[in-house]
Every structure is written in C-alpha cells, then in structure tokens.
C-alpha cells in the first residue's frame, strides 16, 4: 500500500522515492557492549514489529539523499506527527 513521507528537506513526497531504513533502535551501543553476540544481534537483526505507531528511519534515495526519522502508523500505513 502506498504511503507519503515528509522529507525534512524536500517536504511531502511519494513513498516510492524513499528507502525504508528500519526501526529506530536508538543510538548505536558502545563497541564493548556490541562485543556480546546477543547484544549485537539485538541491535542489528531484532525488530519490535509494532502494529501501531513506530519511529523509523527513511532515506530520500531518489531525492536529496537525506537520512531522517519519522513516526508512522504501521496498521494504517500513514505518517503521523
């Protein structure tokens, strides 16, 4: 299903111009933390798969190339404030 995404530089554009970059998992943990395979796996692979509003990364790949975060409702597939 289609979606519109608001790029901080270019404004509201069609979703197909963007690349989804994954759920926002916060700042990258310290290397000492990531040395533990379970912590590394959690940061790299694991998702919450929230059915509802989630904060996520996007890249305006066919536009300005900016990486940014938005909040989107995954049940309705629309961007929310």
């Amino acid at each position, binding site marked *: 299903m289609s979606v519109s995404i608001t790029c901080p530089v270019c404004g509201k554009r069609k979703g197909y111009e963007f690349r989804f970059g994954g759920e926002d998992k916060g700042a990258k943990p310290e290397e000492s933390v990531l040395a533990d395979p379970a912590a590394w796996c959690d940061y790299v692979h694991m998702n*919450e798969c929230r059915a509802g509003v989630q904060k996520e990364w996007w890249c305006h790949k066919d536009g300005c190339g900016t990486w940014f975060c938005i909040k989107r409702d995954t049940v309705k597939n629309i961007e929310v404030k």
Partner: protein
Amino acid sequence: MFGRKKRLWGEKPPFRSDYDAVIIGGGLHGLATAYFLATRHGMNSIAVIEKRYIGYGGAGRNTAIVRANQRTQENLPLYKEALELWPVLTKELDFNLMFYNCGNLNLAHSEAAMKAMRLQVSSARFQGIDIRLVDRKECKELIPALDISDRPRYPVYGGMFHPAGGIVRHDAVVWGLAKGAAKHGVHIHQGTEVRAICTEKGKIVSVDTDKGKINTPRVLNAAGAYSAAISGHMLGIKLPISVLTIQAMVTQPLKPLLDHVVSSGMYHCYANQTLKGEIATGAHMDPWPNYTNQNSAYYIKHQAEALGDFLPCLRGVKFMRCWAGLADMTPDMAPIMDGNDPVEGYYTDCGWGYFGFKSSTVTGKYMAEFMAKGECPEILKPFTLRRFENHRLMGETAALVNYSPDN
C-alpha cells in the same frame, strides 16, 4: 459458515480451560501442526486459537504455488518432502487438494542469472529433486506464449524447469486440515484473540484469551505476520522479522495458454493459470513494513507491464480481482522454527515470508514431533532463532536482504 450449510469441521467446540497444547494461529502451519499432533502423536486435547477465521491470513492469500527449488541444503529436503506430501494428504484427508504438478519455469535474463541457476539446480539435484536447466528454445517449447525474441525489455536467456512443482488449491488445504483435525478432537476456536502468554519459573503455564484463560504446558506461536509482535510483546522475545505486504491479482478467465507456473526474478513477476482459466500473478513486496492488506496502483501497473512484456498475448487482458497478504520476512529468507528456548513449552514457527504455503504441511509434521517429544527433530535444527547471534544465517538469498524494491 455460509448460511444453512453445515461446517466441514463440525459444530462450534466447547471452550475448555485446560488443553495439552494451544496453537496460536488458525493458518496452515497451525492447523497442520494440530492435525499431525492429533493423528501421529495421539494428542487430542488441542486448541487452535484464531483471532479472525481460519485461512484469513497467508493461507488464503498466497498464489497457491508449490515448489522445491530453494538454494540451501538445509531448506531443500524440507520442501522436497512437502511436495511429496500433497498426494499423501489428499488421500489421507479424503479431500481433494487439487494438487496439479504442472511444473515451474523460472526465467533467466542474463548469463549471470543462468550461473546462479546452475548452482541452484545442482543443489536441488543433489537432494534428488527433479529440476533441470533449459535453454531459450526449450522455454518457448514449454510456454509457447512466451516472447523469446530480442524485443522485450529483458530478453529470455534460458531458465530452470522444475517439473515436480505446481499449484495446490490453498483453501482446500485449510478446509481439509481443519476437517481432519476436528475429526481427531482438535478444538478450533475462531474469533478468539490471545491476550497474554503466562509463564512461571521459565515454563509456559497458561494462555489468556478474550474468551477466558487456558491452562496448558505447550504453546505454539504460528501467528504468521503477527508472530513477531506476539513473541515480542507477550514474552519479550524479539524476532528478526519485518512484516511486509505482498500483493497478488488475477485476470479475467482465458482459454488455456499457460501449462506451467512461470516466474521471472528480473521482472519481479510470477504467473500461473488457475483451473478456472484466470491468470493468477504476484509481485514482490511493498518496500516498507505495514500491516495493511491493501493493493496499490503502482504494483498493479507494474504487474500489467511485466506480464505484457514477456507474455505479449496478455496485453489488454483485464485484471478482475486483487488482494494482498502479509509476509514475515527474516534477514536470510529462511524461517525460524524453535522451541523450549528460552521458555520451556514455548514453540515458534514463523518467519515464513512468502514461502509458508508450500512448506506448511511438512512443517506441521515436524513441529508436531517437536512438540510431542520435546526434542527438536534433526531436520529443523538449523532453523533455530540462535543462528542470528551465532552468525549462522542461511544462504537462501545470494545477497543480504535490504527490503528495497530490488527484492
């Protein structure tokens, strides 16, 4: 279910407060596991909990294609056995699953694609699967409607033909398994939502539903697209899954013109002609996770363009219906089947992405064995959740998946 007709799987069963096993998800994986638990392992106090109705999700939304042409030595035997199970189950369930082994033709549009297929064919043949490489001319012989000239955007270079594959009527499998399971005492509770999974000292003790609490020592999470959310939110076990919508559509009915399932990775398009004559065709996934079941004009247009390019006789044919389902994708495009880790009595069967239909019955067979004996069958061992932290991802995809329109 429809008016006065009697349901195939008996009257609405009583809701008990104790079951030997609770299966979350009334899809094919859940129903197959329940069926095999009841028939092969003598367990008949089993509840299948389904939030909507059986076959609502991926079970009734896939494009009914079955095949065993995967890439890895871990996956291939599972799919091979799955193919061999259709005729057996048709007989055993006394239900026509309409298995039609018309064969699958995968098109290659470059020498590089042929090279990848060479590896795939060799791996599959090593496992005793009937599959071979074909050249451009043979592609045309198999599917006369195919345009093998230089005109299409991606001219056909050759392909991979897998005669053992084909199509199975997916709804029939749902109904057949539900009927068979119910006959052996499995309680199928439709319209029942799981609210919580309760543990005590690292063991499963009960499941809370909107109809009441069920005490049970075993729970199987076979909730398809919702399995990651259930596992994460109810037990705190996060899964490496992204839930993506996958779209499909059928054209108006036509005279027979496609004798085989045809697919092209380059065009991102696969098609088969149903027994009613419609061309059922599917596309790749929406490139962002969401839980909607809606189609987009973008994909319908893509599908029409792709089909019309390599099967030019389909130009101008109208799409009649479209629908979408949810695929729970893992990073290595292989499923997660695990149990008793880290919670005793908690079993997982998910991450099946867009290949959960073809594998449903065989998975049910082995998951049932796993749940009945408490020990993981050898064939399922590589599919453990721990493979992600142990860097033992499977090579089902040639490159790391990055959920973009490229896959």
